[in-house]
């Protein structure tokens, strides 16, 4: 990411557009917007070099409220549109704002391909486990059996785990955070912004109209400590008010398990390493939480280096151009006249 050397001295206010924000009062999107606007000056990137691209859904209104360049596009296609923009304009900082329906249902294909290519996009997926804009149908992250307007007797589809999906596509940066925890959200944004390549962030977002309290277990001071696992690179993975729970890799199993810390030898408590190259580790972490959110890690699951699509494409262009001689017009003349030609006098 291009960084200006002179501090730009921007503030959150500089990133507020003149448009009236029109989410429902109390929607988690407000908190995310405020957190992002407050974080943006840290990037020290001129506003004109930042672009927010979104699809369709409540979250996708986001670009209208950012005083940067922005495009509110069509349902599911934001990662593809942003790919075309990012690969042809590597000087820009391109952010995608999407939701669970937008990114995982209608746009699932574009999301996984952007991630496998490792396009230099920062993708913020607001997961509220419901369709808000269309007034309350179940989404691909809604729990099995969810009763909604379109599933009066309960949904029969199993949900996606967005992080497992991203990791299956071998995304190089994968993280999860929560709308209401501004500090954590911004720490994840910071790590994502520093990452070269695709950064995928799932943000648990409350839709207080159609799916209120979906993540309450992880927010309520009375319950959150026992269910929320804060991942920190290089630190043993423990949780609970007194760290009484921990994550281990039991011998003979594929996945990870939660144990009582007291019952485990200290050296057997898993130490988080986001840089493990094999996505299987982060995948195993992502499997700790099911629909019930019982043990839900947040933080950076995976952050590994792999050449971005943008860089590889730009390198090919640069190599081709380095071998070229003459003006574009001269090269074009030569190109048109290539192959077997003949001249009539």
């Amino acid at each position: 990411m291009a960084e200006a050397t002179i501090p730009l001295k921007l503030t959150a206010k500089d990133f507020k557009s003149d448009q009236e924000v029109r989410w429902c009062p109390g929607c988690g999107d407000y908190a995310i917007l405020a957190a992002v606007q407050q974080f943006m000056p840290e990037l020290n990137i001129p506003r004109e070099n930042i672009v927010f691209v979104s699809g369709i859904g409540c979250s996708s209104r986001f670009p209208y409220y950012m005083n940067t360049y922005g495009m509110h596009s069509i349902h599911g296609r934001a990662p593809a549109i942003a790919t075309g923009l990012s690969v042809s304009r590597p000087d820009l900082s391109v952010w995608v704002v999407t939701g669970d329906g937008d990114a995982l249902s209608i746009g699932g294909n574009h999301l996984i391909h952007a991630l496998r290519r490792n396009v230099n996009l920062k993708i913020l997926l607001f997961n509220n486990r419901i369709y808000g804009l269309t007034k309350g149908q179940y989404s691909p992250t809604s729990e099995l059996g969810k009763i909604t307007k379109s599933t009066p007797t309960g949904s029969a589809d199993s949900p996606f785990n967005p992080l497992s999906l991203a990791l299956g596509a071998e995304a190089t940066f994968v993280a999860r955070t929560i709308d209401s925890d501004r500090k954590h959200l911004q720490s994840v944004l910071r790590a994502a912004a520093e990452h070269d390549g695709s950064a995928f962030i799932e943000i648990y977002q409350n839709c207080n109209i159609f799916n209120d309290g979906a993540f309450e277990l992880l927010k309520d001071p009375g319950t959150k400590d026992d269910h929320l696992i804060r991942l920190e690179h290089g630190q043993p993975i423990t949780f609970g008010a007194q760290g009484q729970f921990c994550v281990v890799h039991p011998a003979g199993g594929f996945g990870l398990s939660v144990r009582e810390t007291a019952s485990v030898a200290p050296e057997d408590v898993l130490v988080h390493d986001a840089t493990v190259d094999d996505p299987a580790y982060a995948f195993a972490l992502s499997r700790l939480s099911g629909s019930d959110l019982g043990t839900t890690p947040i933080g950076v699951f995976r952050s590994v280096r792999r050449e971005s699509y943008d860089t590889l494409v730009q390198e090919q262009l640069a190599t081709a151009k380095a071998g070229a001689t003459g003006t574009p017009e001269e090269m074009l003349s030569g190109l048109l006249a290539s192959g077997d030609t003949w001249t009539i006098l």
Partner: protein
Amino acid sequence: MAEQVSDAAPAKQVQQLERVVIRFAGDSGDGMQLTGDRFTSETAQLGNDISTLPNFPAEIRAPAGTLPGVSSFQVHFADYDILTPGDSPNVLVAMNPAALKANVADLPPGADIIVNTDEFTKRNLIKVGYAVSPLEDGSLARFRVHPVALTSMTVGALADLDVSKKDAERAKNMFALGLVSWMYSRPHESTLRFLERKFAKRPELVAANIAAFKAGWNFGETTETFTVRYEVKPAKMAAGTYRNITGNAALALGLVAAGVRAQLPVFLGAYPITPASDILHELSKHKRLGVTTMQAEDEIAAVAAAVGAAYGGALAVTTTSGPGVALKGESISLAIALELPLVIVDVQRAGPSTGMPTKTEQADLNMALYGRHGEAPLAVIAPKSPSDCFHAAIEAARIALTYRTPVILLSDNYVANGSEPWLLPEVGDLPDLRVEFATEPNGEDGRFLPYLRDPETMARPWAVPGTPGLEHRIGGLEKADRTGDISYDPANHDFMVRTRAARIDGIPVPDVEVDDPDGDASVLVLGWGSTYGPIGAACRRLRQRNLPIAQAHLRHIAPLPANLGEVLRRYDRVVIPEMNLGQLAHVIRAKYLVDALPYNQVRGLPFTATELANMLEDVVKNG
């Protein structure tokens, strides 16, 4: 084995011809496309005018020796300018019984047939349903049949060379090419050079293929089977440097040229699809001229990525065929709402659904004009011949860039894979396509108004990210005039819908020209796209029979040329031949209230000049 190609032909009679149509036909694995290509190249070197038509199966390798596996290449060459690859071949080279069976019905009486007798085995005959060999039952009596043991003679000619029997047999197409090159007195140097290049890594195959070519040539020279050798003199063509080019190659080069003339990087988003993939292949080679190609995950991503690149200031293109355009509709609508330049290339093929992917059709016109939700107008243009694809691509880019609109370029399989000589243009003579990006706020008190239009072009400013002070948000929601803010205001929507229509209608396009040599025609034949050649050839035939006929051909279909209504009303009868069920005819009838007569064919093949001439003759004589 003779080492030299002998050019002196003392014993043979030489006959002058004005034009010849040859069809090379064989199994998909027999190398017929390559053989046809080489013959075309030799013929181009000689200065004949040329038009070619490949015809290959959709299957990569259908079972050997079967009718679905037949692949053919037709080349028409003449000492005057020609417009089509020819209706019926004067010469058929049939490498096996399937090739004979699949093509014999197209031959006129008296045509030459060169057959590879080695393949006329009982088994091969049964495979295609011949109970008795057609070479023996008299069914080919109306043709001049030249039975040649092509495979065994090739193997014999290569006996001294260090190649496997399989490789020797595979060189039989070069034997056939040598023989036909001898028959039509073609120069052979370029083919020998080509073989050296093609097999540079395997010198034994260079030697084998060259030996096979020479053996075929010398066989024609020495055998009694061929008593006549033919010559077709060079055509009178405009001075300049030429190359033979297919429509897809010309279209790709046109896009590269447009990028150079616009001084913009070209971005192509594409998903592989027959018959458009060759454009992607060609463009992927031109990175040094600033062309980026992205093979997207699907058709939708391909166009969406192009929309993103257009937003970033590139000359953005997506190339596909009909099924792909169907998938791209929503993104094209977005580009219409965003008023961004975008070139969408549709190399049409026979539909609906998967249809016949390797066969031609013009049935995507309705989709190009109307195939989107809401009132979603855009510009539509169509090339008329393979080399015209170059200029049509530049024109599509010019309209897209100048008027900030998506443009659909309707090519089709016939022009895409057909080829003809192309007079190379001077780069400096190509249109200047440079654009000005917005750099300054355009509104009161330093505001930027993304939907404030240029009064002349009605284009909105192209303000690309990275421009300080012009940060703005746009999207698919209806926008207020000037500000581009979201608007649900009824009057504004009505205004914006009408404005989007008016800005396409207002694009100035050249008047349609009428070819009516004596100015006395009462019937006008109107076409668009790839039917130009067959319609033109048919009109010539009518005029040779002293039947006056006028021809007009549309390059721009949206908007239509301003003089078209007046042109149509000049004639008593307007005939519109199309390879669909009358899609342009509907437009013309609706817009001009002209009782145009549709003439339609959807066989996956181009019109023949003969059938069009017969139809037009009937209209001219009987109204």
